[in-house]
C-alpha cells in the first residue's frame, strides 16, 4: 500500500559522493531537500580505494570546495596521509592526494548532512519515478512511501541492477555486498532512457598484522601537509605511511595458470570496464612483457587493521586471489579479510543530459556520478555539486550554472560527458583539459569562488578573505613589476642560483621569470611589506613565472569563447538546415548543443557543417529580427 510520505523541493536518490554533495548544495541554497539512501550506514562510503585526490581529481576537489562543496573540508578533517604529487613538474600539475580514514570520512560527512538545515536524511530505496506530462514530480520507495518534489537528482553509483562477479560466483548486489537497486532501471527505461552496462572492480583487503613490512618500501606523507579546502588552515591529524611492493614472477604464473577461471576472459562479464583501472589479470594479459607491477599497501583507517592492496583489483576466484596475494613479497603469510570482486551496473548514456546535468527526456530530473558513466569519488562529487546547484536553481526559477572548459575540470568533465558520451567508465585526467595551465589546483578559488559566492554557497566571510587574497597578490605582482634591483644587490643571489649576473638595474619581475630564480630568493633581496601568506607568495610566483604560457592559453580561450558565446536556440530544427551533412544533422539533433562551441566538439560534425550552421543561425536571427 503506497502512502504520501512528504513534499520536498528536491529529492536526492543515493548518498554517496555525488548524492551527499548534491543534497548539501541544494539544502544550503535554501531548498527543502530529502536525501534517500538504501542504507544509512553507507553515507559517503568509500567502497574502493581509501584515498582522495591526485592529478585532475585533486583539482576537482579544490573546485568543489571553491563552489562551496563539502569534499575538501571533509577529507581535511579525516586524512591519515597527505602528499603533494608532481612537485618536480610545473605548477599546473602539482596535485594533492590524501589517504582517508574511510570510516571517519563517512561518519564526518553523515554528521555534516544531519546537521544541515533544510536537509532530511532518510533510509529508503527509490524504485519508481513519478512523471507527469514529461516532468518529474516525485518518487516511490520499496516500502510504498511516495515523496513528492519539484526536482529529483539520481545518484545511484554502482547500485543500479548491481551484480558482483568473482570467479564462478555471481550474484545481484550493490558494492560491498549492499542491497542493489533492482527496479529503478526499469522506471528509467520506461521514461525512454538509453542505459549501458559498465563494470568496475576492487582489490582484496588484508590484515595489517599479517604483512611483513620489512620487505616493502615505506611511502610517508609530507612533513608540512597542504590541504584541499581553502578554509582549512591547520591540522593535527597524525599521518600513517603507505607501503610499496611488487608482483613477482610467481604472481604472473598463478594468474596465467588460472585465466580459464577469470570471468574477465570467460565471458561472464558483459559490462565495459575502465581502461585506466584494469584488473591485475587484465594487466598481465595485455602487458605480458612487463615483469612486475607496483602494489601499494594502504591503511583504510586509524581504527582498523584492514589494508587496501592497490594495484590488485581482481575478479579471480577467492582461492586464486589468496594465492596471488601470497606470491607478493611481504604478503607471504597474509590474511585476506575481504576478497576483491568485479561489479557490473547500469548507467545512463550521458549524452542524454544537458550541460546542467538535467536530463533532456524528463524535466526536473537530474543525474550525477557513476550513473552518468564516470568513475571515481572526485568525479562524482564534482557532478554532485553541479546537479545540486542546478536542481535548486531550477526550483528557484534561475538559469543553470555551467562551468566552461576553460574554468574548471568539472566543466571539462561534464562537457565531455554530455557532448561526446563515453564508451567506458570515464576518469578525469589532466590531459583531457586543453587549458591545463589555467586549470591549476592553486587557483581553483580564483576561478570558481566568485561563482560559489554568487549562488550563495560561499559565505560572506570567506568571500572577503578571497577578495583580500586576490588584492594582495595583485599588489605584490605590481610591486615586483615596478621594483628595480641594482646589479650589486642581485649579484649574490644570481651567483648562488647559477644565473647570469647583470650589469644594469633590472626589475624584480624579469628576474623571477628566470627558471632558476625563485620568489623566496627574490624576497630576501627585495622584501615585501605586504602581509603575504605562503599561498599568496606561491600565487605571485606562478603568475609571474609562467605569464608567457598563461597569456598564450588565455588568447586561445578568448578565441574559443566567441564560439561558446554563439548560442544555438533550443527550437532549431536541424532537418531544416539546408546543406548540413546527414550525419551532422542526426548528431546535432541528438546532442542539441547549447552553443556553436559545444557543436564543434561533437564527433562527426565537420568544420564545414559548423560553417553552414553559423550561416544558418545568422539567417535565422535575421528572419526573427525582421519579424520583430
Amino acid at each position, binding site marked *: 500500500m503506497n502512502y504520501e510520505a512528504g513534499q520536498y523541493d528536491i529529492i536526492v536518490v543515493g548518498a554517496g559522493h555525488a548524492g551527499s554533495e548534491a543534497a548539501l548544495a541544494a539544502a544550503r541554497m535554501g531548498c527543502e531537500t530529502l536525501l534517500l539512501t538504501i542504507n544509512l550506514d553507507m553515507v559517503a562510503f568509500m567502497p574502493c580505494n581509501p584515498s582522495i585526490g591526485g592529478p585532475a581529481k585533486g583539482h576537482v576537489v579544490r573546485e568543489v570546495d571553491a563552489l562551496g562543496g563539502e569534499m575538501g573540508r571533509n577529507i581535511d578533517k579525516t586524512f591519515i596521509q597527505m602528499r603533494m604529487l608532481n612537485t618536480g613538474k610545473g605548477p599546473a600539475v602539482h596535485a594533492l592526494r590524501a589517504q582517508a580514514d574511510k570510516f571517519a570520512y563517512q561518519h564526518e560527512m553523515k554528521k555534516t548532512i544531519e546537521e544541515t538545515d533544510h536537509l532530511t536524511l532518510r533510509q529508503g530505496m527509490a524504485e519508481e519515478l513519478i512523471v507527469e506530462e514529461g516532468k518529474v514530480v516525485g518518487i516511490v520507495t520499496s516500502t510504498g512511501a511516495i515523496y513528492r518534489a519539484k526536482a529529483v537528482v539520481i545518484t545511484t553509483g554502482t547500485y543500479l541492477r548491481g551484480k558482483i562477479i568473482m570467479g564462478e560466483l555471481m550474484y545481484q548486489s550493490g558494492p560491498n555486498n549492499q542491497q542493489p537497486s533492482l527496479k529503478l532501471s526499469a522506471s528509467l527505461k520506461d521514461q525512454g532512457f538509453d542505459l549501458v552496462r559498465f563494470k568496475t572492480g576492487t582489490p582484496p583487503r588484508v590484515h595489517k598484522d599479517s604483512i611483513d613490512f620489512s620487505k616493502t618500501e615505506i611511502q610517508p606523507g609530507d612533513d608540512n601537509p597542504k590541504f584541499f579546502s581553502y578554509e582549512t588552515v591547520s591540522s593535527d591529524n597524525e599521518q600513517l605511511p603507505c607501503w610499496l611492493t611488487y608482483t613477482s614472477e610467481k604472481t604472473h604464473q598463478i594468474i596465467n595458470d588460472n585465466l580459464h577461471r577469470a570471468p574477465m576472459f570467460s565471458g561472464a562479464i558483459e559490462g565495459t570496464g575502465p581502461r585506466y583501472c584494469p584488473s591485475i589479470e587484465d594487466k598481465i594479459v595485455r602487458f605480458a612483457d612487463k615483469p612486475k607491477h607496483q602494489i601499494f599497501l594502504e591503511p583504510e583507517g586509524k581504527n582498523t587493521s584492514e589494508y587496501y592492496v592497490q594495484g590488485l583489483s581482481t575478479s579471480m576466484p577467492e582461492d586464486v586471489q589468496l594465492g596471488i596475494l601470497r606470491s607478493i613479497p611481504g604478503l607471504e603469510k597474509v590474511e585476506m579479510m575481504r576478497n576483491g570482486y568485479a561489479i557490473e551496473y547500469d548507467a545512463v548514456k550521458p549524452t542524454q543530459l544537458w550541460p546542467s546535468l538535467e536530463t533532456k527526456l524528463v524535466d526536473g530530473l537530474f543525474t550525477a556520478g557513476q550513473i552518468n558513466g564516470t568513475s571515481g569519488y572526485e568525479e562524482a562529487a564534482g557532478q554532485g555539486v553541479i546537479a545540486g546547484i542546478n536542481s535548486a536553481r531550477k526550483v528557484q526559477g534561475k538559469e543553470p550554472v555551467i562551468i566552461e572548459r576553460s574554468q574548471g575540470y568539472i566543466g571539462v568533465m561534464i562537457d565531455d560527458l554530455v557532448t561526446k558520451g563515453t564508451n567506458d567508465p570515464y576518469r578525469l*585526467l589532466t590531459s583531457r583539459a586543453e587549458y591545463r595551465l589555467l586549470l591549476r589546483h592553486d587557483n581553483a578559488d580564483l576561478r570558481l569562488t566568485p561563482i560559489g559566492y554568487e549562488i550563495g554557497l560561499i559565505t560572506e566571510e570567506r568571500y572577503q578573505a578571497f577578495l583580500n587574497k586576490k588584492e594582495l597578490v595583485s599588489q605584490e605582482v605590481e610591486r615586483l613589476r615596478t621594483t628595480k634591483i641594482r646589479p650589486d644587490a642581485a649579484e649574490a643571489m644570481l651567483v648562488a642560483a647559477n644565473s647570469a649576473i647583470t650589469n644594469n638595474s633590472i626589475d624584480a619581475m624579469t628576474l623571477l621569470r628566470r627558471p632558476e630564480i625563485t620568489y623566496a630568493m627574490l624576497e630576501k633581496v627585495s622584501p615585501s611589506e605586504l602581509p603575504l601568506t605562503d599561498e599568496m607568495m606561491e600565487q605571485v610566483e606562478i603568475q609571474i613565472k609562467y605569464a608567457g604560457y598563461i597569456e598564450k592559453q588565455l588568447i586561445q580561450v578568448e578565441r574559443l569563447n566567441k564560439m561558446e558565446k554563439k548560442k544555438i536556440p533550443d527550437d532549431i530544427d536541424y532537418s531544416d538546415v539546408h546543406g548540413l551533412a546527414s550525419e551532422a544533422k542526426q548528431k546535432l539533433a541528438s546532442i542539441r548543443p547549447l552553443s556553436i562551441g559545444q557543436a564543434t566538439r561533437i564527433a562527426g560534425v565537420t568544420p564545414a557543417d559548423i560553417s553552414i550552421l553559423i550561416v544558418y543561425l545568422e539567417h535565422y536571427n535575421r528572419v526573427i529580427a525582421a519579424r520583430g
Partner: protein
Amino acid sequence: MVYDTIAAISTAVGEGGIAIIRISGPDAIEATARIFRSRIDLREAESHTLHYGHIVDPKTGEQVEEVIVTLMRGPRSFTAEDVVEINAHGGVVAVKKVLDVVLLQDGLRLAEPGEFTKRAFLNGRIDLMQAEAVIDLIRSKSDRAFSVARKQAEGTLSKRIKALRQTVIELLAHIEVNIDYPEHDVEDLTSAYIREQSDKTLDEIGKLLKTANEGKILREGIMTAIVGRPNVGKSSLLNMLAQENKAIVTDIPGTTRDVIEEYVTLGPIPLRLLDTAGIRETNDIVEKIGVERSHTALEEADLILFVLNYNEEMHEDDRILLEKMADRPVIVIINKMDLSGKLDMDEVERLCKPESIVRMSVLEEEGLDLLEKTISTMFFEGQLSSGDLTYVSNVRHISLLKRAQQSLVDAIDATHSGIPIDLIQIDVRSAWESLGEILGDEVGDSLIDQIFSQFCLGK
C-alpha cells in the same frame, strides 16, 4: 564580431599573369606590414590605396617577390573586415612563395573553402537572398577539398604523416602519463628522450618539406645553365639534350627576363635550360667569352652545368668561374673524353667536389646516364627513379608542416632551459595537432587511447 585572420590565393590557379593573395581579419594589416618592404608603413596607410614594394621573408631577409599591395580597411571591404590584397605578377610559383611567408605570420591561417564569402555574409555585406548560395559554395568546395584530401590520405604522404604523428603521440603519451600517474613505475622521462624523439620527427618533417621543393622542380623543371668557354662543347651538349627530347622541346618566352628557355627531360628529370638562344646564336660565329653571361647564370640557376674540354689545358677564366661556383649547385662536365687528355684532372678535383665531376663524350654520346645519375643524386638524393616519392605540394600542408617544425624546435629549446614537462607538453601537443590537421583527423580521444594502450596503469 571579431574573427581570426585568414589568407588565400583568390585568383584562379593557372598561368595568369597576375595572381592575388587576399588577407582578411583583424591582423591583416599588421601581418602584411611585417613582411612588406616599401616606402610607406602599411599600418599608417589610408584605406583604399595601392602600394608598390617587395614581400620579404622576415626570417631570412630574403626578397620573395615584387608586388603591389591594396589596402582596404573594414567595414568598407568585401568581408567588412580589414582586407589586404597582394598582387603578385611572377606566376603561380612566386605567388605560392608569398603565401608561404604570409601564412607563417602569427595569427594567420589558410582560409577554408568559401570562407571569405561566409564572412562577407556574416558581416552583413551580402543580403539574405544569397545565404543559400553561400551554403552551397561551402558545401561543394568542402566536398571537393574533402575528396582531394581523401585521395591524398590514401597515398604515401598520409602514411608518412601518420608515422610522424605516431612518434609524436608516443612522446606525448609518455609525458602525459608522467603527469597523470606520478607514482607509477613508468620509465623516467628525460630531456634527452624528449629531444631524441623530437629530433627524429624534425628530421622526417625536414625530408617532407624538402620534397615540397622537389615537387616544384618536377613541375617546373630544374633551372639549368650551361656555361663554359668557347669550343668546349656547350652547344653540342645542348643539341644532344634537345635531340633526345625533340617531341617535347618548347620555347617559353619569359615574361620578365629577355631570355629564351627550353624545356627538356633527361630520363625522368625535367630541365629548364636557360639562355639557350644565347648559346645557339654564338654557335657558328666566334664565341664571346661566356664569363659575363655566366655571372647571371650563377645567380639564377638551380643547376649549373660547367663544361670543360678534356683536350685542352685549363684556362684562367675556368679557374675564376670554378672558384666562384664553389657554393653553387654545379656539375663539372669533362667533355671530349674520346680525345687525348691535356686537362690536369688533379687540378680539377682540387677545384670542385669529385662527386660533381661527370666525364662525357658528347660526340660519342657517352656519359649521359652518368649525368642523369649525378643530377638525380644532387636534387632527389638519388631516389627519383624509384617513382615512389611523396611530394608535399599543397600550401596548407607546407604551412602546417612548418608549424609542427617550429613547435618541436620550441620544445627542444624548452628542454634546454629547464622548463617543466607540462609546459613542454604544450609545444609537443601543438606539433601533434598541426600534423593532425594535415590529415583532417579529429583530436578526440586518441591521446587517451594511446596512454592506456602504451602504459599499464591501474589501481
